[in-house]
């Protein structure tokens, strides 16, 4: 695994003075992603927070080429980029599709599924703030049970889609989950993905202080609590074989997890949400754990 010192010595790919909210973890996530992948990268970015925070024309805070594209089209535009590189015999440049959860889990799902089924050569990172943060925090397909958004003012009813498992069913060379609070884990996963051909998918939990309503300085802390409470499970699958990442391994035992309440207590989106909804969230988490650990057992 890459060390913190190594990460720190990699060139800075994000230029200060961008338009992200103070404490934004998606800018942090892309900073890590581009540190991991280097300078020979072409990105496609659909409508999402990154399409705004990269900065307005004529300047950009991202130091690699970026193609901004329509909401549903991150994966398919990346397929085109990848197809053109292939047509031109370029085997070196990495194609990175970088999209939010709305653009991945919802409107862009068909396009990701298509690119994955074709095994087009790219790394697709869905950075998830669990809502349509860019348009003012509406419910997305990744919004967890009970979470309050502007379109679920009483709390989200029902369960989110697990895009990572959906992608896992596409028989891909690499699928993983990550969190912006654990850069070493994320960067190691990206670098592993970069060595593989085909479609690689990473789901990156990116806590959003604006959408989740917690103080900006707690961005890293909240992300860690997501993992420590078991709400976000870190795993990876190489050629379909699911394995819990070390950071989540110890939380396989529910007794070792921090209480969900501790993860939620600083999040305004859960303030005043009824016990039944919190219970539904816990049930969802437990269910996810049973799926992942079962699949991990099969993989052994």
């Amino acid at each position, binding site marked *: 695994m890459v060390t913190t010192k190594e990460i720190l010595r990699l060139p800075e790919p994000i230029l200060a003075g961008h*338009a992200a909210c103070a404490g934004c973890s998606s800018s942090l996530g892309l900073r890590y992603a581009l540190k991991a992948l280097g*300078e*020979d*990268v*072409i990105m*496609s970015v659909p409508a999402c927070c990154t*399409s*705004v925070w*990269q*900065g*307005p*024309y*004529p300047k*950009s805070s*991202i*130091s*690699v*080429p*970026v*193609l*901004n*594209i*329509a909401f*549903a*089209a991150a*994966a*398919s*535009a*990346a*397929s*085109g*980029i*990848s*197809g*053109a*590189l*292939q*047509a*031109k*015999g370029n085997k070196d*440049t990495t194609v990175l599709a970088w999209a939010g959860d709305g653009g991945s889990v919802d409107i862009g799902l*068909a*396009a990701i*599924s*298509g*690119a994955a*089924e*074709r095994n*087009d050569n790219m790394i697709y990172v869905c950075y998830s703030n669990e809502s349509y943060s860019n348009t003012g925090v509406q419910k997305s397909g990744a919004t967890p049970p009970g979470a309050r958004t502007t379109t679920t003012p009483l709390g989200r009813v029902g369960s989110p889609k697990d895009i990572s498992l959906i992608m896992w069913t596409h028989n891909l060379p690499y699928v993983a989950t990550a969190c912006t609070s654990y850069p070493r884990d994320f960067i190691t996963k990206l670098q592993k993905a970069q060595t593989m051909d085909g479609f690689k998918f990473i789901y990156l939990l990116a806590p959003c202080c604006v959408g989740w309503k917690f103080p900006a300085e707690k961005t890293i802390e909240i992300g860690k609590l997501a993992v420590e409470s078991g709400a976000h499970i870190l795993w990876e699958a190489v050629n379909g074989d699911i394995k819990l990442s070390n950071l989540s391994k110890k939380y396989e035992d529910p007794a070792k997890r921090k209480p969900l309440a501790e993860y939620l207590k600083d999040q305004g989106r859960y303030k005043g949400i009824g016990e039944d909804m919190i219970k539904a969230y816990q049930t969802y988490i437990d269910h996810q754990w049973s799926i992942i650990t079962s699949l991990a057992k099969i993989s052994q």
Partner: protein
Amino acid sequence: MTVSDNRPKSLGHDEPKTFIISGNHAAAYAAKMARVEVVAAYPITPSTGCIEKVSDFVDGGTMGANYIKVESEHSAAAALIGASATGARTFSSTSAHGLLYMAELVWWAALARLPTVMSIVNRELAPAWSIWAQTQDSMGLRDSGCLQYYCKNNQEVYDSVIMAYKISEHEHVYMPSLVCQDAFILSHTNAPVDMPAQKDLDDFLPAYEPKHFKLDPKDPVTHSSLAYPEHYRQKRMNIMESTHRAKQIIKDVCADYKKRFGKFHGDLLETYGIDKKTKHIIISHSSIAEEIEVSVDMLKNKGYDVGLIRVRVLRPFPDEELRELCKNIETIHFIERAPSYGFKGIIAIDTMAALFEGDARPKAFHHIEGLSGMDVTAEYAADLIEKDLETLK
């Protein structure tokens, strides 16, 4: 001109050749001989024949393109944008609902200034389901900035796809092209199509080298991020200027093509049976217009002083050219396959707007005909015009 070795291979013929092929196959041959590098397409009747032929070429090893078999037209257009922005020559083909489904990204490609070319098979829109010809699908995108060509026969489809690359990739244009043909009437009709030798075509159409922007890690730019209102007017008027300039570029490219290969189908428009004294002009488009040439002969034989203008290019619109041709006419008769609901035929609307900037005020007759591929026979069209002219007596 020498062709660099890294161009995708196209085993086009060494000598000029004629094939009896459908309009769909004509477009596919043109894409192959234009040495397209990336194709992204999704099947829809009646444009499927084109991408099936492309698949034959690619899998048969005679076309070096990378064919991305996308899961929707929306993704097809997005992939073209990604590939074109990475510096590849790109091609797709679609029709009707497919074109409408990709509409968001057709606009995106245009406003991003990407010179992609698509073969559009004009088809009626549902409901009710219909697979036959109607041009509203592409004409409904006339404000997008895409250059739009409406072909009258398979030869013109082939020639227009080749020329469209040259025009779209002109350093002053950089707009996409839609090369349109009527569903079945051309797309599924087999007719002889003459093709030049590959080497002569390579001389006419050199490899694509992006001049204005390219996704290149050695010179990184962020394309189409957020921009504030103050930048839009200049960028959008730049598109206006490019599309206006495209008129002369189309004329020059068509003339050059004619000189090299002997094929000419008009440039912005094509006239038939018109001289300075013609009093009555029929305006039509696509394959209907070629059949109406027969009607013009019939009417002339009956003593009527009629001629025909086929609007070949809808955008950029040949406004000055129409004003010049219609200076001294008495009546104008529109026969078109595309209504704009709530007003009139789409070409009639544009033509009348163009004439308004001149002095001519011909009496106009409007005929929306041939919807859902209904035959507009030469006899039927002649009869329409004759009835129009009788009302003047």
